[in-house]
């Protein structure tokens, strides 16, 4: 399996990532997920977002998530990109793309990686609200519950 894992401040280009995933001749399905900075979070108006991470551990955890997905499903290619640093509204945060023989595996593997990324990869979001106040985002219970379907 080919895989690409990147943690970067720079933006990413969906079309380029999609074309790379499309390269494998036995791929019949590609599922991609993109997470964006949105304007409302827990009822607050958000103006900007800063993402901090624990560099070495982040790479290690993301590689483990991809390896675990590969144990459960047949995957031809996989891309995980997560941005860090200062982001603005509508900016892209995260990209997960899975190329596999059939759509069922691609959908499942993509959701699996996102569910575990949100609860295990050491990234932390700090939001800036409309008044310019900054605060760290609390972990959502719903993200923990999302893991139950993979047990």
């Amino acid at each position, binding site marked *: 399996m080919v895989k690409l894992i990147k943690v970067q401040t720079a933006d990413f280009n969906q079309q380029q990532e999609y074309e790379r995933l499309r390269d494998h001749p036995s791929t019949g399905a590609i599922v991609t997920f993109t*997470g964006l900075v949105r304007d409302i979070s827990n009822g607050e108006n958000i103006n900007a977002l800063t*993402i*901090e*991470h*624990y560099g*070495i*551990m982040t790479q*290690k955890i993301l590689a483990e998530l991809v390896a675990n997905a590969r144990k459960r499903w047949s995957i031809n290619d996989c891309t995980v990109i*997560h941005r860090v640093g200062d982001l603005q509204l509508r900016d892209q*945060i*995260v990209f997960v793309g899975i190329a596999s023989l059939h759509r069922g595996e691609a959908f499942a593997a993509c959701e699996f990686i*996102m569910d575990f*990324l*949100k*609860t*295990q*990869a*050491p*990234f*932390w*979001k*700090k939001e800036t609200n409309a008044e310019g106040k900054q605060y*760290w*985002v*609390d*972990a*959502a219970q719903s993200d923990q519950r999302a893991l139950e379907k993979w047990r």
Partner: protein
Amino acid sequence: MIKILFFASLKDQLKTESIELPANENQCVDMLLKHLSTRDAIWQKALSNSALCIAVNHTIAVKSTVLKTGDEVAFFPPVTGG
């Protein structure tokens, strides 16, 4: 020595990103936490948070994980990426 890192809200509360301490024989994470908690009330409160996450050498660890010289210990709040 043991390198200790703090991230996100914990780093802000403690106003500390990293420190180094000498390694003690058979010291576990819990003993390290107790030692750090004696610094002042802010450290005591921040490190007693039941949601506190622990990593040793970039792997999720628990309070009973035993530490040795050269280890990198990280303390952080629950993650919120994605």
